[in-house]
């Protein structure tokens, strides 16, 4: 055989085979420079072929930015994306469900085309890194041969449809959402009505309201199972999202009957495609459309759209066999042996959950940072075949769950994991952290979220047995930037990467976010307490948890404690570790976890001239931070109007500091500051983020235009504070860029 195409033949479904052939043809056309960069980029993204850090052909090696001399010359696979540069393949795993055979093929691809590592994402996908684009078509063929497609895994399309990993086996579910998630996945994949979105669109299913597994509240479209008068249906929510500004989804339908679910999703898609923002990427998610028109108007638009839809038999065809997605256990049910060893019992405490079906359990295999090897993947496939059947699910906490494990086999299954060194206990506890890729591989990463979580995991695992149960039960999540792929907003303790300028050098930091709620489908999001140098985050975790244990009342939960004492108190707790030592005293603060390269760019000037300018602008930025903190306190105190005003004031203060840094005379009133900010920083694009462009500046301009803070409710105030936080981060980044430019000009 000379190719996978020949080898696999008709094992590849005809339609998928055609799609892959087409993509391969587009690759050839691009190599011949007959395709536009932007068009090809969106084409490959819609096939799950994503960019990766340094794919612009530039990399800072710690002493300055260097060119990576790829042999392809000036051939690109998108704007500023070098053809030969390694990329990432995101592989959609609908509702996380994997068969043993699929796991084997994924493992083969990890070995042959990647670095032998399979990475489970927070949206139940699997990602392979360091892929060459020319190997992608054959990878897709091999995936297609086992029923997997990467189509629309990235790009402005319907992303992987997620669902609780316990769907069908959960004790608290209204019913199994799997067939519905499966139906909507198939219905919307490649559907003409979802091809013209301005941004991505994420759908999630949950079997119940109370448990966190589905996380529907931060999805573009979420469906929670309900039974009303004996009839199945869903509470449907719309317009949720994390990202830079987290938003709780709004209720679109209190009860959508099961037969109306697909047409409702189609109608929502059509409204989004028709009215969603297309020019400004920063405001193109459906949450902005819902905010813009209001949920009542949005409902009306969807209802009108639904009325005009041409009937489609697929809307209800799947209802004829809701058991098509059922899993069949391979072993008889039974009880866990009473003489199970201590190691097993410690593991089972958090990693084994009784199913609704008597005598069966779901076993969680905790994956460090969501990673496992190809060899482990094959061995896990063997365990599945022997004990659980094709019932593996990737989870949003970056683990694997094996369902339908008979109690009789539980110890043997555990022993199998021990042999693979995959029997880490503590699923869903403080040692089981989730993290986005961060600066390891993501183009947008600011700080090393994986480095941080790896370090925290290592430290906490050592003392796991000594931790107070209340601390052990906490969830920690990290994102390398404000885009929130690590879902840190919904953690007890969340981290989001930011950078700070200290003494003319950059220092990696993480903003600490407290008070997020994972349960009840991530019912509430946390707020930023303050930025702490990356290298002090382990100390911060110690201080936060110790403060909680020392000062809690009785068995008070962490969330209740935070709600009672407020974030101001935690700011005092963290204050002593918020300032890094000078570089000369401890340079380790100036590099990130797991990365010895100096975080700062080495050619930043630290001369006298900069020294005279720096203090004023830094003072202004600090003052803005304080104003923002005060505004957060006001929100906690129930003063939404004051909080929103405080957020705006903080933005104005930061803007003023930057305007004055440009030696522009500016008055103290907000109108003058905003006008000058617009002229000198927004219109000149000096304030623009390299990726988000003018998004953060727009927060100030928009809020200045509204000027109705006194009437703000909690949600508006919360959003105003989130936007102010991001504006301040952008102000810090802008200041860093200005400093670098000044230093370069001085040289």
């Amino acid at each position, binding site marked *: 055989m000379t190719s996978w195409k020949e080898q696999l033949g008709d094992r590849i479904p005809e339609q998928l085979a055609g799609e892959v052939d087409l993509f391969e043809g587009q690759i050839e056309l691009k190599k011949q420079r007959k395709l536009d960069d932007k068009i090809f980029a969106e084409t490959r993204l819609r096939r799950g072929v994503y960019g990766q850090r340094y794919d612009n052909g530039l990399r800072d*090696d*710690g002493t300055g930015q260097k060119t*990576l001399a790829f042999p392809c010359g000036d051939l690109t696979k998108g704007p500023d994306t070098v053809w*030969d540069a390694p990329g990432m393949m995101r592989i959609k795993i609908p509702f996380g469900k994997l068969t043993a055979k699929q796991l084997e093929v994924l493992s083969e691809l990890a070995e*042959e085309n990647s670095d032998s590592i399979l990475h489970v994402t927070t949206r139940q996908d699997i990602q392979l890194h360091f892929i060459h684009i020319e190997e992608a078509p054959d990878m897709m063929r091999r995936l297609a041969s086992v029923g997997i497609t990467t189509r629309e895994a990235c790009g402005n399309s319907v992303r992987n449809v997620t669902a609780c990993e316990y769907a069908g086996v959960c004790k608290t579910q209204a019913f199994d959402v799997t067939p519905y998630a499966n139906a909507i996945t198939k219905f919307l994949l490649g559907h003409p009505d979802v091809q013209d979105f301005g941004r991505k669109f994420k759908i999630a299913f949950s079997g119940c309201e109370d448990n966190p597994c589905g996380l529907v509240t931060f999805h573009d479209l979420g469906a929670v199972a309900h039974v009303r008068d004996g009839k199945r249906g869903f509470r449907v929510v719309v317009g949720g999202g994390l990202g830079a500004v987290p938003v709780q989804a709004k209720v679109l339908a209190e009860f959508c009957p099961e037969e109306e679910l697909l047409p409702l999703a189609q109608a929502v898609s059509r409204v989004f495609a028709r009215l969603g923002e297309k020019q400004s990427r920063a405001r193109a998610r459906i949450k902005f459309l819902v905010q813009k028109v209001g949920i009542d108007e949005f409902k009306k638009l969807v209802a009108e759209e639904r009325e005009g839809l041409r009937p489609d038999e697929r809307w209800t065809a799947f209802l004829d066999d809701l058991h098509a997605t059922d899993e069949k256990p391979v072993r008889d049910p039974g009880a866990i042996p009473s003489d199970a060893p201590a190691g097993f019992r410690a593991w089972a405490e958090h990693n084994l959950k009784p199913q609704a079906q008597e005598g069966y359990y779901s076993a969680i295999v905790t994956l*460090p940072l969501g990673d496992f090897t190809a*060899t482990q993947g094959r061995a896990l496939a063997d365990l599945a075949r022997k004990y659980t059947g094709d019932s593996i699910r990737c989870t949003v906490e970056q683990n694997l769950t094996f369902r339908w494990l008979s109690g009789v086999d539980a110890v043997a299954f555990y022993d199998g994991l021990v042999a693979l060194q995959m029997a880490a206990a503590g699923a869903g506890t403080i040692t089981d952290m989730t993290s986005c890729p961060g600066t*390891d591989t993501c183009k947008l990463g600011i700080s090393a979220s994986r480095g941080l979580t790896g370090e925290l995991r290592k430290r906490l695992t050592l003392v796991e047995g000594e931790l107070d149960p209340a601390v052990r039960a906490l969830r920690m999540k990290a994102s390398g930037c404000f885009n929130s792929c690590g879902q840190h907003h919904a953690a007890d303790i969340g981290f989001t990467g930011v950078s700070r300028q200290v003494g003319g050098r950059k220092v990696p930091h993480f903003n600490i976010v407290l008070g997020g709620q994972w349960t009840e489908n991530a019912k509430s999001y946390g707020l930023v307490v303050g930025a702490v140098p990356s290298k002090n985050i382990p100390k911060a975790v110690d201080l936060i948890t110790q403060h909680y244990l020392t000062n809690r009342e009785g068995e008070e939960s962490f969330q209740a404690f935070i709600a009672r004492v407020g974030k101001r108190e935690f700011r005092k707790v963290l204050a002593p570790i918020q300032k890094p030592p000078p570089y000369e005293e401890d340079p380790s603060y100036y590099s990130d976890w*797991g990365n010895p390269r100096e975080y700062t760019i080495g050619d930043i000037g630290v001369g006298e001239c900069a020294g005279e300018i720096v203090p004023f602008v830094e003072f202004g930025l600090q003052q803005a931070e304080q104003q923002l903190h005060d505004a957060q306190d006001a929100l906690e105190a129930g003063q939404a109007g004051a909080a929103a005003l405080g957020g705006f004031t903080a933005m104005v203060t930061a803007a003023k500091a930057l305007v004055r840094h440009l030696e522009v005379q500016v008055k103290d009133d907000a109108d003058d500051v905003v006008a000058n900010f617009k002229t000198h920083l927004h219109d000149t694009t000096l304030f623009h983020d390299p990726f988000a462009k003018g998004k953060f500046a727009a927060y100030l301009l928009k809020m200045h235009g509204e000027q109705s803070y006194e009437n703000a409710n909690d949600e508006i105030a919360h959003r105003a504070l989130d936007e102010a936080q991001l504006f301040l981060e952008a102000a810090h980044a802008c200041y860093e860029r200005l400093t670098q430019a000044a230093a370069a000009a001085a040289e």
Partner: protein
Amino acid sequence: MQATKFQVKLYTRAGGIELEKLVPVFHEWIRNKKISDELLIDVADYAHVPQGPGVVLIGHQSDYYLDVADDRPGLLYSRKRGFDGDFQAGIDDAFQRALRACELLEAESSLDLEFATDEVLFRVQDRLNAPNGDATYAAYKPALEQTSTAFFGAAPSLERVGTEREPFAVRIRTGASGSVADALAKH
């Protein structure tokens, strides 16, 4: 089509290894272009994964792993791109690059590493062109014997390892006891 995705692993003499020490070393290799005829890109740290790839120096043509699979640390050279030469030369080149990387690692004072030469694991990450079976073994055996002899002197003993769903792999007992430098000098 001829397979070119060859992997060669040489094991460390002492069992234990502090993987985190490899991270700054590999970054320094990138900075100072220690492997001058290859484009080195980045370092991937998988020290948190048991029996995993360890720490990986990601390149364009090849990757270099300080791999801890099977709890047996070793340097794993992995060619990713095509090789401009014949079959025998491709295998020779993979061995040579693996040995050169071992020599570089042995020279790193922060690591205190030494590699054994008595055993080499050879793999081909290409199930299409080199499935793990007797036919592939028959095709590769003479070339592997020739390469092994050229580097290590003694007549080697070869054993195909793994099952057909795993990549084609051969464990080579080289019969050598010398150093990495000896092997490189011999070739």
